[in-house]
């Protein structure tokens, strides 16, 4: 058993434990005096379950997991298709399965499976031997589940698949024409999405982002209240369970999307600095894992994972500060939620396994 624990990377482990501690305090404060008073306990259960999974994966040879990535990918696609048919509709979108009284969101896990499978496909040979056709194939593997998810609809989740495409410049380097092509894609894609792909509420979010004061009673209300909470926190914060924005319910959805605003209000800029520093350490350590990985596939997986974590961090922390559109992307270890928590721990377990194997050799 002690052998097993030795598989846990201490740097990652401490960073994660610290972040979980901050997240649990945040949820405790956010849930206080609301019907969700015990949400911190529920989340602790998810965290515990996640850590067990993490431990299991850390002690598993990563190569075995890569071997199962293709069937897992197919299963994932099937699940995404199924959720559209038999999924549970909550708040206008069909994203969840009901399993034993718990909602389960297959897209959370699918993100990591896709990364695993794409990394395995591209990492089977040295980078310069990978042909253009294979790269396009990889793009297709990423875009297909994204399209299924946008059918739910869940733009934030769909966009969180994009960091996987980061693997291409990682392998081939950044070239001017890549950037040009990307710029073109953004313009054409953005126009196309605006014209055909985006739902009215998603368009509204973009508009409100461009001018938050245009809708203070409606959608803009959320971000406006979140900015007030963050700004009112100041340097040292209002104190634990003493944020007026949080405790008087001015702050919306404070246990999920806006959990970080709770932390920022009650712990202030110093607390934000601590949390962001821990996230920085986490990203940094994951990229270290990519550097010491034994195979290309493992290295790609770690790099892609860093990209996914970074995107969640950027979008959520940026969104609650009003610096990015209101996208509904969760913040790892802060936002309450079973599927996302388990998925993040699974990824971390895999990364620890990769680090463990690298250390052993």
């Amino acid at each position, binding site marked *: 058993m002690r052998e097993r624990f030795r598989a846990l990377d201490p740097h990652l482990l401490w960073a994660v434990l610290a972040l979980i501690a901050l997240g649990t305090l945040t949820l405790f404060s956010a849930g206080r005096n609301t019907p969700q008073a015990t949400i911190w306990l529920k989340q602790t259960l998810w965290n515990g379950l996640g850590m067990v999974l993490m431990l299991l994966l850390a002690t598993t040879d990563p190569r075995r997991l890569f071997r199962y990535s293709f069937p897992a990918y197919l299963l994932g696609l099937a699940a995404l298709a199924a959720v559209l048919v038999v999924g549970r509709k909550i708040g206008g979108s069909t994203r969840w399965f009901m399993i034993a009284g718990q909602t389960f969101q297959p897209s959370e896990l699918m993100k990591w499976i896709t990364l695993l499978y794409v990394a395995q496909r591209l990492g089977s040979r040295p980078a310069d031997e990978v042909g253009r056709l294979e790269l396009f194939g990889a793009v297709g593997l990423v875009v297909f589940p994204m399209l299924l998810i946008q059918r739910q609809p869940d733009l934030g989740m769909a966009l969180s698949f994009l960091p996987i495409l980061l693997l291409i410049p990682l392998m081939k*380097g950044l070239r001017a024409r890549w950037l040009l092509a990307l710029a073109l894609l953004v313009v054409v894609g953005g126009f196309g999405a605006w014209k055909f792909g985006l739902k009215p509420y998603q368009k509204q979010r973009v508009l409100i982002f461009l001018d938050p004061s245009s809708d203070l009673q409606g959608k803009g209300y959320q971000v406006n209240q979140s900015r*007030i909470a963050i700004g009112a*926190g*100041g340097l040292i914060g209002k104190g634990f369970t003493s944020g007026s*924005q949080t405790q008087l319910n001015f702050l919306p959805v404070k246990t999920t999307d806006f959990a970080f605003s709770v932390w920022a209000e009650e712990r202030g800029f110093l607390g934000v600095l601590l949390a*962001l520093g821990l996230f920085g350490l986490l990203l940094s350590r994951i*990229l270290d894992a990519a550097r010491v*990985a034994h195979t290309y596939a493992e290295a790609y997986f770690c790099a892609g994972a860093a990209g996914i974590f970074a995107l969640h961090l950027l979008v959520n922390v*940026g969104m609650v500060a009003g610096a990015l559109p209101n996208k509904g992307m969760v913040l790892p270890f802060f936002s309450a939620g079973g599927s996302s928590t388990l998925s993040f721990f699974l990824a971390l377990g895999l990364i620890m396994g990769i680090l463990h194997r690298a250390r052993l050799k």
Partner: protein
Amino acid sequence: MDPRQQPLLRQRLGVLKVLAWSLVALLVLVYAWLQLVRHGEYRQLALQQAVKVRPIPAPRGLVLDRNGHRLVDNRRALHLVIQREDLPTRPEVVTALAEALVVDPQALARKIQSYRLAGKGRPLVLKENLDEAGIAVAERVRARFPFLSVEVAPRRVYLGDDLAGHVLGYVGEVDEELMKGKPGVFHLGETIGKEGFESAGNDKLKGVDGQKRILVDQLGTEVANFGQIDAAPGRSLFLTLDAGLQKVAQDALGTEAGAVVVLDLRDGGVLALYSSPSYDPNLFLNRLSQDMVDRYLANKVTRPMVNRATQGIYAPGSTFKLLVALAALEKGIISPTTPVYCAGRKNFYGRDFRCDKPTGHGSLSMVQAIAQSCDVYFYELASRMDIDDIHATAEKYGLTERTGIDLPQEKRTRIPSRAWKKKAVPRDPKWYAGETISVGIGQGAVGVTPLGLARFYALLATKGKLLTPHLFYGFRDDQSDHLEPAAFVPPKDTPLDPRHWAILDEGLYEVVRGGTATASALKELTMVGKTGTAQVATFVDRAHYARQAKALKDHALFAGYAPRENPQIAFAVVVENAGFGASSAAPIAKKLVQYWFLDRLQHPLPAPRGKLVDPFAPQQTEAAE
């Protein structure tokens, strides 16, 4: 195949690491901007929406009758309001709100605008006195418009319903017209008395609003109180009114239109003042139902909003003969014993003036003439006097001025004179001697208010003391619940010759003993008074009253005092279109005297109790009686 041997990959991973830390740094900058640079601004915003200053409405004082029975009480009421700091700004929100509340959007927008300009103070009331159904509606509207709130505020309850509507009046929101006239005196949204004593005694009854600083949550619910300045409730006060006597007056008049006034001869306190038809002030509680008031006011036939006791001008008829007799005595134009012969009619200035008794009274002294209410006798007196003589006497005994009662918009009794006619009838300013003959029997241009008439009979009862009628008796000492009597305007002495007085008193006594009102005599004590039957078709009201058949019947009057030996009360009764004064007005006076001197001591009437059911009334308030 080992990626660790791949320098390009290592290099690119290094770049990614720099990018990761740059991302963290970028976010740190964003938060530094919000939390360090703009902290003050956001802290202010957070405070503004969580810490509110709310006025605490002060309850008005209670109004009790002279025995401490509650006439006006306060109850808890719930209002749907917008606090001043939550007033919506955007026109489409105001329009949607107006739609939800089914009110005129432009009027609402105007109201919101004026409240915004007025700064801090009472909230804008959208719907008042919510009942259970109203609360359900209010909550539904509030779900859509979170800036609305439900305020708890005291509300007036008039326990006697329409027992003393004209005396008490009602309250309402101060209107902007009134505020413009007196800057700084009234505040927007303030509740003030609109009519009756609520209006005249507004300064005595109103309290001073308090203020509290509270912490509210997103729904506007009070979470914590940071401290408050308590509201100072208005002082409770006693009226001189006796609820039992008032009830007797109400019942005696019944469905007839008219007025009853009873004065306390010691101080001029008003023991009863009833105008029929009365109105129930509880109907005017909702300040937005102005149309209710309008509908009442628009009723030109019964005119229930007019206080007939202080605003109704009636030809006094024979009740005026006492003043004519007094003027004649003071002028010395006749000796009280000099007989005047009544043949049932007499010709003055080429016109026939008839007596009530067509066969004539024969030869009468002044006392007999008063007792029999002989018109010819008083025509004779009037013919020997100038109208300005009568006016001068009336002026001397206070009949030409307002009585000064503490009720709003009292009308002045009208005693004609040459100067008056010049002003009032500019197209025919000359006074004709024939007109004086009519005035001699209380007809023609002469018109009195029932209160003014009662005051004149009070003067006769007190041998010449001119009282100032008043309703305010004194404040209530809140510890002991006892009356702290207030100073009243002391009676003014008038130069009434006791010999003259004795003749008038004798005449009034004879009216009840053997004259026109013998049916109204009481065994136990001596009530004295004079009947009056006033023709309706006076020159002001003819056009109006001619429309209705009943309206052409004469008004019946009775005025007097009791007991004769030691007078304690004076009264005036007017019954509109009831015919002969002796048969309809005098019996009402008899009932008043009967109750005041006999029944009251054995079986006082119970305290007034409204039929209004109040869903939020704390039970103790009832029990406190």
